[in-house]
């Protein structure tokens, strides 16, 4: 067994913590580099396109009224959504509106899952 470089515990702590931080920082840079050169990375702009436009300001309204404003949302669906939100600790009065939005993510995910199952 060779001799230790130092036996001063504070110096050991300082050097070791510095090395740990440097190595993990280097690893972080490597991760960022991999992300940057990733040829399969989805374009950021595409993501923005998928996102819905800024929702218009909606006056606070009772849940039932909000549902009544939107065509195609039954009171049962409103009740289910309100209950799900309430289970996360939010009050029903905090729900301003329930609106269907055009987002293809779930639909596409379901389609992909079905097609993967077939293959």
């Amino acid at each position, binding site marked *: 067994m060779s001799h230790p470089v130092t036996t001063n*515990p504070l110096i050991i*702590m300082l050097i*070791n*913590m510095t090395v740990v931080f440097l*190595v*993990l*920082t280097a*690893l972080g840079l*490597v991760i960022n580099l991999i992300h940057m050169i*990733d040829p399969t990375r989805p374009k950021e702009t595409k993501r923005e396109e998928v996102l819905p436009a800024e929702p218009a300001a909606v006056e606070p309204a009772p849940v039932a009224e909000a549902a009544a404003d939107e065509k195609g949302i039954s009171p049962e669906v409103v009740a289910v959504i309100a209950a799900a939100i309430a289970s996360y600790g939010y009050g029903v009065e905090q729900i301003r509106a329930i609106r269907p939005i055009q987002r293809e993510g779930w639909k596409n995910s379901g389609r992909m899952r079905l097609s993967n199952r077939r293959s």
Partner: protein
Amino acid sequence: MELLNAFVVSLQAVWADSGFSAFEAGNGIMILVGLVLLYMAIVKEFEPLLLGPIAFGCILANFPRTGFLEEPGLMQAIHYGIANEIFPPLIFLGIGAMTDFGPLLARPVTLLLGAAAQIGVFVALVGAMLLGFNVQEAGAIGIIGGADGPTAIYLSIQMAPHLLGAIAVAAYSYMSLVPLIQPPIMKLLTTQKEREVTMEQLRPVTKFERVCFPIVAAIVISLLLPPIASLLGCLMLGNLFRESGVMDRLSDTAQNSLCNIVTIFLATGTGMTMNAHDFLVPQTLMIIGLGLVAFIAGTAGGVLFGKIMCRVSGWKINPLIGSAGVSAVPMAARVSQMVGMKAKPGNYLLMHAMGPNVAGVIGTAVAAGTMLAMLK
């Protein structure tokens, strides 16, 4: 008469060769310790897959005259696997195959939390040296704070093999007690406002990133710290099995059959180092105390660094995920989730905490490698 004499002489010979004639009080105490550990593993379910074989190995190690370590056989082969650092890297192969580095790849800044939590290792090292342990022993004791069993065993074997039993038992015991040790420290060091911080959803990580990371990380870390190349190399190889998508059979073997087999050998062999002669010394109590200090300091270091990152990021990082930097995968991440949910129902921190959690595994291995390079 002659028959009676022969019978008595034979009985005397059997008694003289039996374990009872060489049985000492210390062996009795250690068998009791083994039974208590078995109780904790089976009844209390504290890390039963590890504590169970460790406890039984402890009982086996305290039967006199078994010649387990002197004569060729299974027990000697198991000891060979531990003494020559064969089993810890194989366990890391399985851990790599089970680990999802996705949360870390999605938010690499959490690597710093895994680094900050390593302060526990060095606080315990300082404490151990103040208590009179030499620098190699102190390094091996300190690594308990990394909350990573295989790394603790790997380092102990190389720096202080006579303390292996106490260090392994302390490391695995405290790992199982993470849900009891961490929450009070996390609550003490954070405000309600900090605990309520909601983090943004992680970005999706591509397969390219998942496949490249283990390869590049193995190259970078092995070149920087060759003493831990076998540990980190196996971790990354196991992860490559998982992420490549074309080595499913190897991934399955690494994370199930192989990992289970090696766990049996490693844990039983570790328990077999707990013989009365090496374990029943005052240093064991000191090691157990220092292990607790290491865990507390590591948790505090991660949370305090999390508070800094919370401010720097503009309240986008919840400091509670810092405590997950002490490895103990995935228990420490679950604790972050649990404390976060108590502060704000619906605030899911689990995936965010997995980043520092797996960073802690790498951080502990890096700390071990640095100590091996500096102190061995």
